[in-house]
């Protein structure tokens, strides 16, 4: 019953050999999860698939915002290989029963990996459809057990000037490390994916290897990459983009066609990749089309003020 899309069959043609090798090691790591679901492509259980066409692998891996490697969209693909992601550990800190520094190998075992094909909507008014592989962040929460007084989860990206040349730029105004945050309810929502792979293979470095978040109803900058710290707290954190431009980027950053960015409209988006006449322009959906799953989180909240 599972339909194979054109992009799935042609995907092997665009996958470079070293990525294939990576994939094999990834499959080993995720082997337990893969065993139960033979029918699904790549061996992952699937849920939350949009039937829109995913962007080609090449588009999703050469057009990235990852300012630690430079401010051009092409910089991360050029320089992210300078980051070493093996070994990798993540600090679990703050108001939590089981704090500590955990190896990636352990974290991979805390949930059942599955593939999800999500729309990714960037605050810059473009979007791509991307097949991710990971497990719900809720599984991690179950494992580390946040205390009941923890109301927010704060995430930090690796900040290492030696491996990340964008941080060495004199022009950068960002106060590293990159910080993002969610309410505990948002973190526990089944759509929030702790992500280790895309297109059936391990995440390329420029896409946030080895572990990142994907929060499909929020603008892309909330989906923090290359996570080294997850902290539980009772105070709403000030995120990196909030610090830079508080009038333009809020804590919630939910996709919302009715609330414009001060400098551009969010009513429509360019669906990438585009051709020589530009990308297709489509209407942006409230909560990026995931309102049914998440709208209840914001009942009574003025989304014009809490943008």
């Amino acid at each position, binding site marked *: 019953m599972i339909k194979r899309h054109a992009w799935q069959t042609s995907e092997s043609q665009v996958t470079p050999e070293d990525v294939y090798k990576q994939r094999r090691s990834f499959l080993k790591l995720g082997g337990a999860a893969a065993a139960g679901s033979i029918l699904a492509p790549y061996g992952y259980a699937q849920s939350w698939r949009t039937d829109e066409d995913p962007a080609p692998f090449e588009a999703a891996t050469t057009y990235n915002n990852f300012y630690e490697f430079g401010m051009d969209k092409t910089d991360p693909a050029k320089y992210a290989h300078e980051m070493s992601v093996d070994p990798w550990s993540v600090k679990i800190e703050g108001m939590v029963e089981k704090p500590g520094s955990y190896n990636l190998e352990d974290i991979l075992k805390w949930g059942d990996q599955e593939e999800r094909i999500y729309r990714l909507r960037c605050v810059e008014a473009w979007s791509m459809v991307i097949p991710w592989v990971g497990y719900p962040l809720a599984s991690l929460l179950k494992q580390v057990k946040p205390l009941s007084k923890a109301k927010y989860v704060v995430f930090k990206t690796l900040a290492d000037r030696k491996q990340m040349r964008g941080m060495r730029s004199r*022009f950068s105004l*960002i106060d590293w490390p990159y910080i993002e945050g969610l309410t505990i309810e948002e973190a526990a929502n089944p759509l929030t994916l702790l992500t280790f792979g895309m297109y059936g293979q391990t995440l390329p470095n420029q896409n946030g290897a080895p572990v990142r978040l994907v929060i499909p109803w929020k603008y892309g900058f909330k989906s923090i990459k290359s996570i080294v710290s997850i902290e539980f707290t009772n105070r709403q954190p000030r995120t990196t983009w909030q610090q830079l431009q508080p009038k333009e980027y809020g804590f919630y950053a939910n996709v919302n066609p009715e609330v414009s960015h001060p400098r551009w409209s969010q009513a429509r988006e360019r669906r990438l990749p*585009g051709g020589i006449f530009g990308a297709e322009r489509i209407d942006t959906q409230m909560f990026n089309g995931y309102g049914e799953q998440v709208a209840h989180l914001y009942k009574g909240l003025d989304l014009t003020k809490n943008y």
Partner: protein
Amino acid sequence: MIRLLVHLGSAAPLVFILVQLLTRMLGPDPGEPLVRFLGEAAVVFLLMSLAVTPLVKTRPSFKRLMLYRRAVGLWAFAYALLHALGFWGLYLGWYWGDLVSELVERPYIVVGFIALLILLVLALTSPKVVMRKLGGRRWRFAHRFVYVAVLLAMVHYFWQLRSFAGEWLVYVAITALLLGWRVMYHWRSSKGRV
């Protein structure tokens, strides 16, 4: 002969970016790099046209440059116009409604649009016939608005940046140098007369 070279050289960046667009070298979002490139080219040509007078006045041996100032200025307008059309076409998908709402709601678009309108007026009044009809005095007055246009272009450039860009600082420094030289020059020559 030199005039032909000036035009060929001025058209080269346009050919360069169009070839990249047509061969799909501009990546998944071709509109963004195309529009950015055309806008930057408009700024560079505008600054080149503004550099002619200071160069000629300080080095009289460069006075032949004066012959090509108008051509460079017209190319600045051409790049600015293509930049605006590219924005409308590749960003807004040729939607009239979106163009109007951008012009109403986005101050940085308005600023860029005013700069484009100024350049349009200067381009329309650039032929010798029009110059003669207007008379030197009025023509010079009108063409001083190029200073307003370049300042608006710098504001427009800065306003659309999502975070800091070093190139912008370079262009602003050159603008300050070229306009500052004019202020100094007129101040000195008016003092000299007294």
